[in-house]
């Protein structure tokens, strides 16, 4: 993939890569320059503040405390599980949207992207009504299988997957649309069923897109707050993920909140660095 200059350079600066030459071009009009600089400061200032006020000396202790570890572990496990759910369900969904024609496909596609713009809290409420103990599906899960999702780790995974899966679907669908469908035809003429063609030809070809989508979905799941706290609650060790722990800690132990935030910031930067070639420069 070729890298467009400006976004690539921006990513480089963020991640400490080579910097673009600092040639000040004459004639940047003040009415543009001033708001631009204020905007940049506005975006960077909170991050600077986070770093400035970080309790660097007590940080090792903070990060090794049981509560932090518990939250971090839970976050990593549930975000990874949510990503796995998204992969298993989302990749076939993306294939369906990209490769088949069916009535109402546009509508389905719009509905799939809805969780992207839906306030996560609303998602949590909706999940409760669907999968809660008295929800339209949840009551049967409870009655037939004894499965209760709300306020369990599985519930946290469900909430995160609900919010994160659209990222994966959209990413994979875009990659599928860009991939040449004639490879599937070639596989078919060699005797491969449509599923075999998908598994042995299409999937390896779109692997980079699937990977990028997974990382995005994983990052989104890791930061999920609204849907999780609504649907899964806030139980340490069970449903209290990092964002929830940060929110709670801020009220009685701000230093711990900052430490937890730093961890999430580090993860975010790592994700951005990992994706800069694929994601930052595609537009």
């Amino acid at each position: 993939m070729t890298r467009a200059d400006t976004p690539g350079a921006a990513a480089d600066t963020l991640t400490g890569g080579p910097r673009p030459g600092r040639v000040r071009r004459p004639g940047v009009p003040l009415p543009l320059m001033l708001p631009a600089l204020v905007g940049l400061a506005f975006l960077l200032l909170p991050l600077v503040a986070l770093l400035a006020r970080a309790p660097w000396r007590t940080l090792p202790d903070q990060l090794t405390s049981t509560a932090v570890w518990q939250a971090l572990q839970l976050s990593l496990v549930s975000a990874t599980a949510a990503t796995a759910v998204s992969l298993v369900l989302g990749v076939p969904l993306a294939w369906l949207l990209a490769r088949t024609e069916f009535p109402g496909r546009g509508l389905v596609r719009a509905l799939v992207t809805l969780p992207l713009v839906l306030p996560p809290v609303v998602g949590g409420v909706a999940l409760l009504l669907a999968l809660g103990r008295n929800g339209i599906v949840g009551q049967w899960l409870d009655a037939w299988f004894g499965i209760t999702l709300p306020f369990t780790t599985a519930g946290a995974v469900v909430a995160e997957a609900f919010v994160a899966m659209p990222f994966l679907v959209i990413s994979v669908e875009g990659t599928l649309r860009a991939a040449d469908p004639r490879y599937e035809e070639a596989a078919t003429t060699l005797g491969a069923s449509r599923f075999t063609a998908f598994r042995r030809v299409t999937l390896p070809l779109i692997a980079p897109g699937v990977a990028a989508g997974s990382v995005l979905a994983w990052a989104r799941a890791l930061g999920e707050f609204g849907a999780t706290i609504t649907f899964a609650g806030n139980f340490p060790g069970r449903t209290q993920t990092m964002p929830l722990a940060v929110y709670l800690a801020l009220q009685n132990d701000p230093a711990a909140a900052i430490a937890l935030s730093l961890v999430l910031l580090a993860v975010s930067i790592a994700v951005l660095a990992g994706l800069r070639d694929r994601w930052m420069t595609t537009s």
Partner: protein
Amino acid sequence: MTHTRQTAPGSTPTGVGGEGLDARLVVQRGSFRLDVALTVAPGEVVALLGPNGAGKTTALRALAGLVPVSGGGVCLDGAALDRTPPESRPVGVVFQDYLLFPHLTALDNVAFGPRCHGASKAKAREIAAGWLDRMGLADHAGAKPRRLSGGQAQRVALARALATRPRLLLLDEPLAALDARTRLEVRAELRRHLAEFEAVAVLVTHDPLDAMVLADRLVVVESGRVVQEGTPSEIARRPRTDYIAQLVGLNLYRGTAGGHTVRLEAGPAITTTEELSGPVFVAFPPGAVTLFRDRPSGASARNLWRCEVAGLETHGDQIRADLTGELSLAADLTAVAAAELGLQPGATVWATVKATQTHAYPA
């Protein structure tokens, strides 16, 4: 969708008797309609030749089952394939840009087919290695497609298509992706492999040279219909449409013969050596045309036309003049002759062709 076999009696050439391919392909797509009948004997190589957009590739895809047919039917070795999905047809396809799977090595590309047909991984690789060996590519078995040259990729694609032992081999513009020099080499090699292939081979091309070198028989398709078929030499000697005449480099006219004279629809007459009557074609090569600046005095008025130069272009080591006027024709002459005649667009010239250089045949 139901397909009924509706090959009109007498619409297909005879002499196949169950073996080989017997197909009539009807594909309707918007206002474009493809309706082509195709009969190919085992061991025969047939080229579908035609301009871009004629429907050749659509015909090939219909044979492979990649495009649904709206009528007709495909019969291969006596079995109807109409309801057979593409993955179950005994068909191998070499695609125009080969479509080698970029994430697999040459060996695994070739092994893909046998593997899908139920061979174990080891067995499939063994088969694939055998094919690569036959193609002289044993050294490149481990290479990914992007590291192969155009000619090598073409051979891998052929090996991949042949590794499933198809009864029908389809090649879509097999040489189009190659540069001129590789093309010459690969064409000769492909000719050899096709000659060894014992089942039916159908290739699609817009290049007359490819078609004539590779195929035993040509089927010329224009606007979705077969306009002429025959051996390469028949087609080259007796073109029946302007498109083919241009491909084989002949001036072609249609008219009505009476004795040695063919009166063209547009007006002038051409004198020929053949004695025919009724609707005929007359053809002569551009090289047979002689040009004069002034009306030649001693010459008879037969096959002499007053023309105007519409355009000039180099054609090999010759100059090709496009002439309009009493008769529209192309004439080849040497650069020296062109200079001596002072040829330039708009100039008036007299063109003449000897009757012995023309060729007339029934339309």
